[in-house]
């Protein structure tokens, strides 16, 4: 059993590219659910929109990556309008079902043969999607590896820029939620009728929160496409949204740092159990499991963790129970 290896791999994943992608998705959810109280179960559609914007613009149309990022943001905005206008007047549970359905609708549409020429069908879009970004890499060409953390030169550059992006978005959210806009949005979450009686157009505020959260999610999708150089439709399953929710609730909803803390801890635990179990099986400590079982066990534990979290500490690690009671209907 190589504990050093387990720890290295775990740390690398806990603050790695995937953690950044999920962190951005969770920050988006924090704006929508944590602050505005919108139970968006279709966040993965926004992430997919960001990824596909990069894939289509760069690969299918052979245009600039920087244009793709702009397109990704525009597409996410349009998606939020399309999704929000019919559904934001609905009750929380209806909104949850409609948004999860919309995200599956999005996935099934983009993977269909009908749009294969543009969107790549079930295989998705694969190629040098992020080349323009990777060309800006300032790290020395003979870069080998950091101590402890085993990223490649390319991944390290994504990780650096990714966390800067997370920091920038977090500051933006922090400024917004303590602005008058943030107070109105939180008011809607607490008591919609009270805010209406103050003469605020609740619908517009909700829509703005949905757009903002969606665009932040799309940024996660853009990071994904650039880092992995691949856009695969079937990675955008509803489970992605649920993992992002787990991250948000773990860190604490309606807390600015909640998603960041949540993402790091979530991936630390998920990667840690995976690496540990994998090593333990190889070392012969556990003989009733096969290496292929590890993935499933991780998810079983994750689901159990989500249940335990909601039962015993619904406010998460840093959340404030008074801030978000989680029982609006």
């Amino acid at each position, binding site marked *: 059993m190589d504990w050093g290896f387990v720890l290295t791999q775990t740390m690398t994943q806990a603050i790695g590219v995937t953690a950044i992608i999920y962190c951005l998705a969770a920050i988006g959810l924090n704006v929508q659910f944590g602050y505005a109280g919108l139970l968006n179960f279709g966040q993965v559609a926004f992430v997919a929109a960001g990824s596909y914007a990069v894939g289509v613009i760069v690969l299918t149309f052979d245009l600039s990556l920087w244009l793709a990022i702009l397109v990704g943001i525009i597409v996410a905005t349009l998606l939020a309008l399309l999704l929000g206008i019919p559904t934001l007047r609905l009750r929380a549970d209806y909104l949850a079902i409609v948004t999860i*359905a919309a995200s599956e609708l999005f996935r099934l549409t983009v993977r*269909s*043969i*009908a749009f294969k020429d543009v969107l790549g069908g079930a295989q998705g879009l694969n190629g040098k999607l992020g080349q323009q970004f990777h060309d800006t890499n300032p790290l020395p060409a003979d870069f080998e590896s950091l101590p402890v953390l085993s990223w490649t030169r390319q991944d390290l550059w994504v990780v650096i820029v990714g966390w800067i992006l997370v920091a920038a978005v977090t500051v933006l959210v922090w400024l917004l939620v303590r602005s008058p806009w943030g107070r109105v949005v939180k008011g809607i979450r607490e008591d919609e009728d009270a805010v209406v009686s103050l003469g605020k157009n609740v619908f517009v505020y909700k829509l703005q929160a949905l757009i903002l959260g969606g665009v932040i999610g799309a940024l996660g999708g853009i990071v994904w496409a650039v880092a992995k150089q691949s856009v695969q439709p079937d990675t955008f399953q509803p489970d992605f949204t649920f993992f992002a929710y787990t991250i948000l609730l773990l860190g604490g909803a309606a807390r600015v740092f909640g998603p960041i803390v949540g993402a790091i801890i979530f991936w630390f635990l998920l990667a840690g159990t995976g690496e540990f179990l994998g090593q333990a099986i190889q070392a012969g400590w556990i003989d009733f499991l096969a290496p292929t079982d590890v993935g499933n066990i991780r998810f079983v534990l994750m689901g*159990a963790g989500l*249940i335990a979290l909601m039962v015993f500490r619904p406010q998460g690690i840093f959340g404030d129970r008074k801030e978000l009671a989680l029982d609006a209907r």
Partner: protein
Amino acid sequence: MLIAVRAAVAAAVLAVISLLGVTLLGATAAHAADASLVGSFTAPDGTGLSEVSITVSNEDGFSETGTSDANGDFAIVLPGGGTYSVEIDVTTLPEGISLENPDDASRSLLVLGGEKKILTKLVEGEGGGGGGGGFIDVTGDQFLQLLFDGILFGVMIALAALGLNLVFGTTGLTNFSHGDLVTLGAFSALLLNTAGLHLVIAAPIAIVFCAIVFGWGQNKVLWRPLRKRRTGLIAMMIISIGLAIVLRYGVALFFGAAPQTYKQYAGQVGISLGPVTATPKALILAGLAVVTLVVVVIWVQRSRIGKATRAVSDNPALASATGIDVERVISVVWIVAAGLAAFAGVYLGMTQNSVWNMGQRILLIIFASVILGGLGTVYGAIVGALVVGIFINMTSLIIPTEMKTVGALFVMIVILMVRPQGLLGRRERVG
């Protein structure tokens, strides 16, 4: 040393074999015997793998070897439905690519004839045709066949949707793990069936077992204590998502990821009933399901506890004040809901197959049904499920089959815009 082992594992993970869209060719039921196996070999980065050999054979001596083309696609024409063994020649895989699970190199596969949905157009495999082919003329027979298949599918969905609606009506819980109760039903029967019990005996035992353990037990252990603590509905909804993840991956852990079939009635040949074709098992299952639905409806309308259920759905506080034991009603509702879901699971497991994510796959269709019919209503669930089942099948006349669920989800969203209470729901504010 360990690093070296790790590298080997990583190489194994690189092997993504996307097995295998099994699609039946043939325009009408009469031609359903013309089956083919289409699929593609894809590397982890999504590029197609060419020149990979795959051999399909059966016990009757049929054997055909196909090789993937430049896009990684292959297609093998089969003589008809039945069980085939599929073998991938791993030596033809490019260097650096191997199977994640070496056991997957050969497996047996059930290609269903007759009742597995008859496609209305010739399907070209992934990437074969670009646009998915044009439309073909629709004959009256095909119309009826799709309608009939839709009803058979809708009846199955109705079983699951009714349970979901009963639970929602009495407790307010939107249960995202309801689909996994369907999976548990299918696999409970599978477990007993593999242990040697004939399916006719295994299925009812499994349904009763699920009703008690996953219905009564689940409510007792999880939901009742949560209600006592006054946990919010959104928190409960998120807990049901956690539960769904636990159950789904738990099933994958214990039963593996490959689809499985029951020992009996697996490769039934369809019989023709005038203009339509269906397998005898599907007809019997649908008959039993209709009887079950009627019994549950009468039970809700006429029996004491059924009336109490409606009272609780209407107003729990008022029901409690009139002397109804609300918790007892909820217990009964959970038993009925889990039993119905398990029945739906056996139904789906018999007519298609049992796979770890079968419940998740139909969950959104169930949701679409209850929203269409009216969330929390008894008749609404049944009507909604039939409409959605028929709709999903009929739309394959005009849109590609792979997108038929899209149509149902789209209709659900439209319904919510124009009539959020559903077709049969009471008019109340849901916004």
